[in-house]
């Protein structure tokens, strides 16, 4: 049997890096909620994000797509400084939230994370009751004046996450006893309970079945009325369904960004075209 010789991956990346002429498409929007400029991220020796600039507008859903290991999750985690928890991670460049540099040394990350909430890939409710899961954020930030206000907040968040009708009779039962899709909606309810401005979602449906996924996607569309959402997804159909703008990441670079329907119907960059037509990734 003859083994076909394939070019090592390093060669491909060198070609991309050598010939890269900057992100294709318009990365700015009018009145952005968040702006990232020339963001670079290093993990120890690895250069994970290279010169990424991107605006995130108000009340829009931005989808970040790309093959595994391309840096889209890393970029997402820069937006609320979740990467701070990783010792070897260094971030440079500028990320602004409403005109304020979030990597400013004087800035306190605790209120930042209340303003930029996050939903993770694997549903991770606290091993506490459903009520306590949602009430935790308002409690630590002191958002509710009394018990009835807290009750209201919990109910409102669960309603907006589309979970209220399913759990209203068992609020005191553990959140970990819910199904995977319900757990993820509980995590979304927990995030929106502190009324963030931006919600970051890191592949929120990758552990869910199609029905639960459809519910979350529907929910994302509704949440857009009140929040700005950045979602990382491996499913191109999902990106097409839920987002208004899409960015394509490849080997740490933002290759192309633009309106979702344009990206999927008329990609400008060869790599984007290859990816969305399924030639690799």
């Amino acid at each position, binding site marked *: 049997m003859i083994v076909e010789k394939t070019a090592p991956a390093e060669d491909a990346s060198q070609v991309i890096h050598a010939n890269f002429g900057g992100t294709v498409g318009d990365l700015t929007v009018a009145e952005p909620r968040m702006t990232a400029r020339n963001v670079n991220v290093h993990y120890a020796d690895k250069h994970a994000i290279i010169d990424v600039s991107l605006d995130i507008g108000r009340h829009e859903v931005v989808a970040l797509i790309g093959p595994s290991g391309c840096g889209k999750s890393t970029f997402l985690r820069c937006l609320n400084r979740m990467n701070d928890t990783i010792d070897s991670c260094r971030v440079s460049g500028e990320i602004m939230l409403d005109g304020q540099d979030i990597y400013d040394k004087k800035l306190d990350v605790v209120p930042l994370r209340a303003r930029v909430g996050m939903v993770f890939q*694997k549903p991770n409710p606290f091993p506490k009751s459903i009520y306590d899961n949602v009430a*935790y954020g308002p409690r630590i930030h002191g958002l509710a004046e009394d018990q009835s206000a807290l009750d209201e907040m919990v109910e409102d968040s669960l309603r907006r996450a589309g979970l209220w009708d399913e759990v209203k009779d068992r609020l005191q039962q553990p959140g970990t006893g819910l199904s995977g899709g319900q757990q993820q909606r509980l995590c979304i309810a927990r995030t929106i309970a502190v009324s963030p401005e931006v919600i970051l979602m890191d592949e929120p449906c990758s552990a869910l079945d199609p029905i639960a996924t459809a519910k979350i996607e529907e929910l994302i569309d509704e949440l857009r009325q009140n929040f700005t959402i950045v979602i990382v997804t491996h499913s191109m159909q999902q990106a097409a369904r839920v987002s208004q703008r899409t960015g394509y990441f490849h080997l740490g670079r933002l290759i192309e960004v633009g309106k979702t329907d344009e990206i999927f119907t008329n990609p400008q960059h060869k790599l984007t075209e290859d990816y969305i037509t399924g030639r690799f990734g």
Partner: protein
Amino acid sequence: MADRSTTTLDKVNASLARRYAKERRFRRMGLVAIATGLLFVLLLFTSIISNGYSAFWQTHVKLDITFNAEQLGIGDARDFEALSSADYAALVRASLKEIFPEVRERKERRKLYKMISTGAPLLLREMLINDPSLVGSHHAIWLPADDDIDMLVKGQIDRTLPESARRLNDQVVGWVDRLTENGVVAQLFNTTFFTAGDSREPELAGIGGAITGSFYALLVTLLLAFPIGVATAIYLEEFAPKNRWTDLIEININNLAAVPSIVFGLLGLALFINIAGLPRSAPLVGGLVLTLMTLPTIIIASRAALKSVPPSIREAAIGIGASKMQTVFHHVLPQALPGMLTGTIIGMAQALGETAPLLMIGMVAFVVDIPGGPLDPSTALPVQIFLWADSPERAFVERTSAAIMVLLAFLISMNLLAVLLRKKFERRW
């Protein structure tokens, strides 16, 4: 094509037999290993229990005691001072004289009186002090027999041996037989063993003092080692930056866990007794030394418990804006606590069984009184076992085994508690 697949199948089948044989062999070896382990445990328990169970009973002799004021030498006085210094041994002597009127020679009489424990007069004294109105009255009272008599009744002294090779001569054996025929010899539950402190007389010796000493020492250990150990673990695991210093500290903690315990005893002697001037033989010092010894165990177990909390829980808390402190105390700690408690209980069980460091700080002294606080001189349970194992009296042999049984019972129940805690708080996420 067909041929090839057949030969492959044959090869697989041939190797299958070999693989299964290997598996069977391994399983058998495992069973043998477990059986050997169990056998040794069984041997240990059988030997300890068969040696020690008889110590829970003590031979008593029922004597007719008349609280004769004249014999007591108290005249008409009934006050505490008179009663506490009265001659109670005389009452026992009088009673024995009545049963054996034919024993007249001084030497023989002394042997006769020796049959009853020297603790018996103290018992009578206590009775009378509690109730002075008993003076003049007449009672049949069960009094503890001397340890040699106890051994004879329990069959530990071989009657077939020539008289000269026995601790009791034929005459005394005859007296005991006569008392037994009279139905005044019985084995009663040995409460003294659990309530008394140490004594030179086996029938008066107990583990009460040692248990109290161990209790105070462990209390000190628990109060110090648990908070310090858990705080250290939380700091190192959750807050400390990962650099050369924390690596060094971690290595040292692991090394500390492997330091022979007697070295901790030496350290305690130098530090707590010589420099800090704390009293010798005190459970406080014992507790401090055991704290040093237990800390690494608790820190290592607590760190492992913290490490096992899934990072997703931390991320969830941080992601909605909990501070580091809130994340740790609201979410990580409750998840890690069962593991920490398990580690602590196992550390405490280790401390309970530790002897060597306590020898160094003087908890090996002969202490008759039951300690009233952590500063009173005292021994600990394992040290008491060590002391008794060294005693020549035959009756201390069974008491040593009995004390080991008590120690093992404590250790087993502590370990059981650890298992129960783990089972109860085990959570899935």
